[in-house]
């Protein structure tokens, strides 16, 4: 599923100002590799682009599910405030892990995932995405197995300070266990909306999934009924018998039609709903990050104030530790400002993201509804046509 998206205002290439920058990705060709418990599915990821840092115009790499997870995790850590596109679920019931339907659903979802990243103005610029799309398989494997978090090569000082602050402040200063929270009524509203939305969506998705099952069951029952009608027709014989046989045949035809529609329903309606639920869960994770950032900002501000007071005290007593304290204070001030910056970035990004999210979801749902309605109408028409074709024959029977 290729999506050609011309991306405006991003990655302008000085070498070719006339050609529009583009980045298009597709995830294709699932192949089962490995044996037994270690078996997994690998995908071909094809990148077509004219971005300067990329090996254009086309590059193909092989990736597996855990590579996608790596990409998602890295982006989540780095781009706090952005709603990182959701991934399809990690574990599946063992039995279905390699069923054709599951594999296809996952492939489709992964394709959507990468494309959403590729069309996001910030995320598409990331090193992580470039690595994911371009690195050879060995490099990818190395990156994937690297430890993350505290041992990152980022400037450790700020991170260190953050970590220290967290432990110290919560012990000494705060005393109380209750975490500090924003008192922003609009944000409260948003949080409440997101949490409620997940519940409603989950229910809708549950019924959508059941509906898929019902289609399958109806198909099965039509098949069984058709067979029985045929046997009865063979027994009855003559024109009545023929009528039964034809009824049976039509019934079996419709059974196949229903199974097909069940699959369509799964891919075009139930999956988008599931995707919607995942997206909301991703937003919840971002909400969590924002809360963390807010807490850190508060805590650092508190600590900084304390340090200031302490410094003043030391200056008054002309202690020889003033220099040291001054240095520490400067560092804390920088950290505090950084924390504030980070928090404010998250807030800004979230505000942008929520608008984009709502619009995107209206599009996604609109399309899903369209496909659903079209599918149901088509199915009903097939059913009507099939049964209607029997009527002249039945007429002939009764006229005889």
């Amino acid at each position, binding site marked *: 599923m290729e999506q050609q998206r011309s991306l405006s205002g991003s990655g302008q290439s000085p070498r070719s100002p006339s050609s529009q920058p583009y980045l298009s990705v597709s995830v294709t060709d699932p192949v089962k590799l490995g044996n037994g418990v270690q078996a997994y599915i690998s995908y071909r990821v094809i990148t077509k682009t004219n971005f300067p840092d990329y090996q254009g115009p086309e590059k193909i790499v092989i990736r597996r599910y855990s590579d996608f997870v790596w990409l998602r995790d890295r982006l989540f850590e780095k781009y706090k405030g952005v709603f990182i596109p959701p991934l399809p679920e990690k574990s599946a019931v063992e039995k279905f892990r390699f069923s054709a339907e599951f594999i296809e659903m996952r492939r489709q979802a992964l394709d959507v995932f990468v494309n959403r990243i590729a069309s996001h103005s910030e995320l598409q610029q990331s090193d992580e995405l470039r690595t994911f799309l371009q690195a050879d398989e060995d490099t990818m494997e190395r990156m994937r197995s690297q430890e993350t978090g505290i041992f990152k090569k980022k400037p450790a000082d700020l991170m260190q300070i953050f970590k220290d602050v967290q432990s110290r402040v919560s012990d000494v200063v705060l005393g109380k266990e209750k975490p500090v929270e924003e008192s922003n009524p609009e944000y409260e509203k948003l949080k409440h909306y997101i949490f409620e939305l997940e519940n409603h969506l989950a*229910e809708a998705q549950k*019924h959508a999934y059941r509906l898929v099952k019902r289609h399958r069951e109806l198909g099965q029952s039509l098949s069984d009924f058709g067979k029985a009608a045929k046997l*009865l027709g063979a027994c009855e014989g003559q024109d009545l018998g023929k009528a039964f046989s034809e009824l049976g045949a039509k019934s079996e035809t419709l059974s196949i039609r229903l199974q097909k529609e069940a699959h369509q329903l799964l891919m075009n309606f139930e999956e988008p709903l599931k995707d919607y639920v995942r997206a909301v869960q991703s937003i919840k994770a971002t909400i969590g990050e924002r809360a963390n950032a807010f807490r850190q900002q508060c805590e650092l501000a508190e600590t900084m104030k304390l340090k200031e007071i302490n410094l003043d005290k030391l200056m008054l007593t002309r202690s020889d530790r003033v220099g040291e304290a001054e240095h520490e204070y400067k560092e804390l001030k920088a950290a505090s400002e950084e924390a504030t910056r980070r928090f404010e970035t998250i807030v800004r990004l979230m505000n942008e993201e929520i608008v984009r999210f709502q619009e995107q979801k209206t599009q996604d749902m609109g399309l899903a509804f*369209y496909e659903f309605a079209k599918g149901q109408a088509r199915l009903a028409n097939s059913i009507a046509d099939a049964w209607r074709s029997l009527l002249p024959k039945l007429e002939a029977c009764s006229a005889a």
Partner: protein
Amino acid sequence: MMGSENQGFEEAHLFASREEMENLVLDEPLSNHTNNHQNNNSYSNYRSATSSLSDTTHHPLSPPILATPAESDPLLSPPLYRNPGASDNHSYIEPPSYADVIFSPFDENSVKEINGLDSPSQSSESSLSLSRSPSSSSDYIKITVSNPKKEQDTTNSLVPGGNTYYTYLITTRTNIPEFGSSEFSVRRRFRDVVTLSDRLAEAYRGFFIPPRPDKNVVESQVMQKQEFVEQRRVALEKYLRRLAEHPVIRLSDELKVFLQVDGRLPLPTSTDVASRMLDGAVKLPKQLFGEGNAVVAPQEVVQPAKGGRDLLRLFKELRQSVANDWGGTKPPVVEEDKLFMEKKEWINDLEQQLSNASQQAEGLVKAQQDMGETMGELGLAFIKLTKFENEEAMFNSQRARATDMKCLATAAVKASRFYRELNAQTVKHLDTLHEYLGLMLAVHGAFSDRSSALLTVQTLLSELSTLHSRAEKLEAASSKIFGGDKSRIRKIDELKETIRATEDAKNVAIREYERIKENNKCELERLDKERRADFLNMLKGFVVNQVGYAEKISNVWAKVAEETSGYAKDSS
């Protein structure tokens, strides 16, 4: 039972309120139609039909059904009903494509007598006018069972303190002159129905007599009284109506008495088991010791050997049947009608296929039911989402989405209703399979009447040959003695007497056997004809129903597709 049922009538009502459903206001509870009430006689029928799967649509013009309205067969409405409302709703009924499917009523109708049934096999086009085939205005019997009442048994009570039982009001309307009156009712208890059934079985051997409802002893203990009584009421009504459909049985004395004569059903000489056993026990020693009337009285021959009364006869016939099965020689008279044997095998095959088809039909009905339910639940979930998004909307994109969701939800709810209606109709159509499966029991009964009559003939024939050879031996022995042997001669005379009586019995038995064979033949022909008509009816009804509802459902979704077509994946 072998009459067909009018489904067109039923469908007329259901198609009438399409406008109404499209005007569904979602904020109201979904079953609330009152705002959209159309002054339409069929409306009440429509409502009740949509509210549950198997429903009664008690037509307002039919005779008041007292008490429990539940499950009297909605299709057996009085013949003269015309749906005035339907013509008003002409524009609301099926889309034009349906008109192509108009067909005229079955011609088979004119052959069958209609018992208060509307002209069967109407196409749904008859929604506009219930044209009935001309013959349907002739003979009819319409039976209704209602008004169960608890009563006290004051006589013959073995249990001190009396025991209670239920009686049912049985109302008959008919224009058949033999009944003497056009409307009458009696109160009957279940025991009377058992008696009726037994009497019919005796009198109409060889006929396909509809089987009576089960005694359901266990159920009567376990179920709630109300539920059980209602279940029984429905079963009784079905049974009596089936009897009334049978061209021969409907005119029987037994049925007439049952329907008309008040008071206890007259009992034959010995119906209760106790006296039967006594009868048999009294006769047996005499029979065994060869005295007195060792011969089956001719009039008894027309009944199969019953336990208790005819122990000796039973023994003899059993011996005969064993001889038939395992003996080296063929019995004197054999079921020689090859056509019949083939037919019998075919009936068994038919029964098997019917059973299978009936089972799968049930599966289909369940699947349709589930589909409708889940569709409805999906719709409701989206309605909730719609409300939620509207309440919490901070962006226009949310409001747009809410509108889309409402569109989908409304359609899903409508589709759900259609599935349920479709299913209610499907049940009625495919019920024909169940009905004929039930009739197989009656067919087996008729065939076994024939077998036991044949066995009686065979038994008598072999007895005759035994008697003859005994007589020969005696004569041969007696002739050797000059002047005759007084005692032997007496014995020979007695033997000759016995032979004569046995000859008579044999002739009666043969006549009975032939009679039953003839009944079988007629009934088989009738079964073939009626079954063909009923099944064709069923198929047509089923198919027409499926087409109609598929079209409606398609329209519902086509609208949604149109409204959301803006989102379609175009080459952007």
